[in-house]
């Protein structure tokens, strides 16, 4: 076949991300995800570098590629200048393009992320906004957050915010004109199609 390896290598980030891994494992030593999950970025780089289609497909269908937290602590540590965290970005893109992400529990979380962050971007122009950080879904935010969200209209002006206001400032409403330009960018560059595919997907058999 050779299709998956070709797809991975055709990503413009590949050249910078995986030059030649010597399997030293320093990326795994520094990796916060490797401390928490059964995760080993060294093995991922090795699997991609070996180019075994079967193993790569197995990887793309697994939970493994979704464990990385994207802190990029691996980048300044790699003695060969590889970027395992960016290899992950490529693998995740290919997994989603191929529909393989649906085969793993962690991969299927992309739908939840798209419904949350993805919709926020396209609907209000923010990735995160106080209206979207609901206390009932964020118990870790504590009672002060619950208080702030409840009173945000009257309290946030004290901090100079412009909550749902016109003009400039924190938490202003982004104008329909700006939102249309933002959505147009998504339409022109494939972001909208990607969004719709993850949510509704042609990959549903």
């Amino acid at each position, binding site marked *: 076949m050779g299709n998956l390896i070709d797809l991975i290598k055709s990503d413009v980030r590949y050249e910078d991300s995986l030059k030649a891994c010597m399997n030293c494992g320093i990326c795994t030593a520094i990796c916060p995800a490797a401390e928490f999950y059964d995760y080993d970025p060294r093995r991922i780089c090795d699997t991609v570098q070996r180019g075994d289609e079967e193993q790569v497909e197995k990887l793309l269908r697994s939970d493994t590629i979704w464990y990385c937290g994207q802190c990029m602590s691996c980048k300044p540590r790699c003695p060969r200048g590889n970027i395992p965290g960016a290899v992950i970005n490529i693998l995740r893109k290919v997994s989603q393009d191929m529909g393989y992400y649906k085969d793993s529990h962690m991969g299927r979380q992309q739908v939840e992320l798209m419904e949350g962050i993805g919709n926020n971007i396209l609907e209000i122009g*923010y990735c995160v*906004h106080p209206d979207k950080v609901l206390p009932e879904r964020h118990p870790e935010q*504590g009672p002060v*957050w619950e208080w702030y969200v409840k009173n945000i209209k009257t309290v946030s002006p004290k901090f100079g915010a412009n909550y749902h206001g016109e003009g400039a400032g924190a938490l202003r409403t982004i104008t329909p004109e700006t939102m249309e330009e933002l959505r147009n960018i998504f339409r022109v560059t494939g972001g909208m199609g990607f969004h719709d595919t993850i949510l509704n997907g042609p990959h549903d058999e």
Partner: protein
Amino acid sequence: MNRFWNEYQKAIADDHFFYERSCIRQTFFPGSETAFLRMLREELNKDIFDDFRQHTCTGIGFHCDIVPLETTMTVVARLFSLMTEHGYENYVPSCVTSFGVFTEMVHMWEEHPELLEKTRENLYKACKREFNIPKNIAHPSDVIYHFRNELAEKMKYRLVNRFTGKPLKVVEHIGCHYAKIFPDKGVGKAEFPYVLAGMIESWGGEVVDYPERRHCCGFGFRQYLVQENRGYSVSNTKKKLESMEPYEPDFIVSNCPGCSMFLDRWQYTIAEMEHKTYDREGYGIPVLTYEEMAGLLLGYDPWELGLQIHQVQSERLLDKIGIPYDPKAKYRTADGKILRAPEKPENLLV
């Protein structure tokens, strides 16, 4: 300056900045963005522009792998087009992840000129806009660091314990995307990040050097944003808190919006789950943004900076520095109405 250390410096513009707001900071620390603009305009007499037509850089979506590279690249280009339209060349993104994203896109355009052409084409097709690449991209913490001595001259207070006369012990946490992605774009690079340490030392404090100083706060993007994955996030913050605990820091300061929030909120969570705090008295270690730290020393009102919307409360720190505050004003609305205080946590003292 030592010639070796000189290699660890970065270029930071002196004036005329285009400001780009952060989704996380607008959500959790709006007072810090306001304080940054106030410091630039009122304390330093600098020109900084805040355009109402800006929007997310999509950085969180990009690192959650739900926004494709070409899309984020063109979104970045639109933000640069606003800067260009207003005649600015110095770009100041409020968020550390945005700073990483902008730096990465510019790097890719330099390495692959065909991508730059494609982005220009995409932006024009989508928005009929054109853009220049900024001459200088600096994070707001770079800008405050750059002017730390000028600000020090205007400060009413110093990072000194007024009861003991000793410097306050400060943990500084640098967001991973500040210098780990492009080490030469950060003051001190990835190995010796000095952007916050420089402020602390210039303003009278003492930097705490502890084993997990450079460990990630644990945000992890999808590892926090998906509720069932949050164990990853709290575990990494816990690792840092356990490591700093023996040094008894007076407070933590961070230059990353996510880190500032997580280091605060996970202390609450751990206290509620495990009855454990990382200070002696059970109040937790206050976490400040660098603007909150600078603003307090300049004499800004703690309740206008927004310290009351942190979960770990900061009155004990204010008392140590000698900063006056009105306890009755803490939970007042902007027009002076007194609100009922938030509920108290079961274990974390407030």
